[in-house]
């Protein structure tokens, strides 16, 4: 009986703004994307926009998106884990300040940060100028997938560091001591205790880096010089240049499947709802 209790008017009023927000900015847009994705210009139902993914251009873009996102995620993970460990274990009183410093660039506009990489990597950019000055051959990075990975890693690495740092800093030091006490050396302690216990952080980090990498179009646009098309760029073109919302929505739905799969896998590892997510 009790759980059938009706909510008071006050409670309904308080929930109101959230409901309006969620309906207006989440439910309706999502519904529109599904609607556009599954209809053609005359409004009739079709799978065409979805199956368009199988065209050579789109498949190539999808494959490149997945490939670069995976590379970016792996690079972020490899760079972040040791750093997060150092931050979490440092006896410095201001280790949280140090962690904060890594987040600080995020306060700058993402486009600016990416444009900064453009000036660094350009053929006549900062790096090549220095290389020429000291008599070394110049390198050609800009407008290649490598440049895009640079940009992605730089933009998304804080999303990997933070959740891993959060998990490691909360680890009971006595749990690590217990492993040492029971005979484990430093490597065994890391592999058998620290690493397994930090998996929730790693999974959150992977999700939070992989998903935006997969859908980015700004970074690939700036650092790829519009020559390298990721699926995000194709979707952007469909909406803006081709003005074909149906095709754009269809491809978005395909991308959403990948994201949902990533989310499902990650939620599986976050037991107790004790998520290390920063989102």
């Amino acid at each position: 009986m009790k759980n059938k209790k009706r909510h008071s008017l006050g409670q309904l009023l308080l929930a109101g703004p959230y409901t309006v927000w969620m309906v207006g900015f989440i439910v309706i847009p999502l519904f529109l994307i599904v609607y556009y994705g599954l209809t053609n210009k005359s409004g009739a139902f079709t799978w065409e926009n979805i199956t368009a993914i199988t065209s050579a251009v789109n498949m190539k873009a999808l494959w490149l998106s997945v490939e670069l996102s995976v590379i970016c995620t792996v690079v972020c993970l490899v760079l972040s884990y040791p750093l997060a460990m150092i931050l979490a274990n440092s006896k410095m009183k201001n280790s949280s300040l140090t962690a904060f410093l890594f987040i600080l660039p995020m306060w700058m506009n993402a486009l600016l940060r990416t444009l900064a990489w453009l000036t660094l990597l350009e053929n006549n950019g900062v790096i090549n100028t220095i290389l020429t000055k000291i008599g070394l051959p110049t390198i050609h990075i800009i407008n290649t997938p490598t440049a895009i990975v640079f940009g992605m890693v730089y933009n998304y690495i804080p999303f990997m560091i933070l959740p891993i740092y959060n998990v490691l800093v909360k680890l009971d030091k006595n749990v690590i001591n217990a492993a040492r006490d029971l005979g484990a050396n430093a490597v065994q302690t890391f592999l058998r205790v620290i690493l397994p216990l930090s998996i929730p952080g790693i999974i959150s980090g992977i999700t939070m880096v992989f998903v935006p990498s997969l859908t980015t179009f700004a970074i690939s646009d700036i650092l790829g010089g519009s020559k390298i098309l990721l699926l995000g760029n194709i979707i952007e073109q469909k909406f803006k240049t081709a003005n074909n919302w149906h095709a754009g929505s269809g491809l978005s739905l395909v991308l959403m499947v990948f994201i949902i799969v990533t989310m499902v896998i990650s939620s599986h590892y976050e037991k107790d709802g004790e998520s290390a997510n920063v989102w």
Partner: protein
Amino acid sequence: MPNKLLDLIDISKSYDGQTVLDEMNLYIRDNEFLTLLGPSGCGKTTTLRIIGGFETPDTGKVIFQGKDITNLPPNQRDLNTVFQKYALFTHMSVEENIAFGLRIKKKSKQYIKDKIDYALKLVNLDGYGKRDVESLSGGQQQRIAIARAIVNEPKLLLLDEPLGALDLKLRQDMQYELIRLKNELGITFIYVTHDQEEALTMSDTIVVMNQGYIQQIGTPEDIYNEPQNAFVADFIGESNILDATMIEDKLVEILGVRFPCVDTGFGTNQPVDVVIRPEDVELGKPEDGRLRGRVTSLIFKGVHYEMDVMANGYEWLVHSTRMFPVGEEVGINVDPFNIQIMNKPESEDEEAQSTDEE
């Protein structure tokens, strides 16, 4: 006399200029149940962490089974620790937790299985092997932590306030359980606690610590009946601690009244501290007492009555099975054997150090 299993020699440790241990010397014999007892910040946990290998002393040596292990990492020491708040591996089952040390040592599967079964029986958690450790209660987790340590057959088990997180009833049950375990296993225990009752119940030897110095080492009876200074007397149980003057051997003046006692060697007319336990204060008719006083409060405690008696400007704490109502005039007597005389420390710093030269 059994061998020294562990010998701490001149151990000092400070953090950020704050001295936690100052030239501490302590040894522990084979098969002893030794308790480090003291208020928080007295250095007892630091001592345990130095023995376990989680801290390195600034000076001094840790000798274990005749070998200097001062700089040996924890994983190379033949001893195990039961941590405060259990420190179990939450990503493993009960079985995997217990097997952790044995797997590191690459024991055979059959050996590990037998050991797990044996350890679970020993801590009365038969059949819990497949459980998730987080599904267990605090008391059960504590038993698993103990099982995880003892399957490695350490010569010495360190216990860092292992019962601190448990409720009173469970704590008392676990005290008996630990004594039983120790007797069954025949290994040496070093136990850290701030709970004096726990220390008195379980230990063979109690080491009372304060501000990085050992105050007194002795059996529970010694510590309770013959505290060497006011700190020990105050920390262990309730007591009346009074300023007094040692008139001569076997005669002490307390609150202006002379009492015969049994202590000698404190000189003549020397200021001393006197400890009288509340249960040793005898109340009777006013005309029979050395001191006269008036009962100011009365509380029934079950086993005894707790009374405050105001006499010669001091409020005496008295435990007695005889009841005297509030306002009644009473006489106070103390048996000479129950008057414990202690040297007066000159300063607070000396108070901490006073018995360090044992």
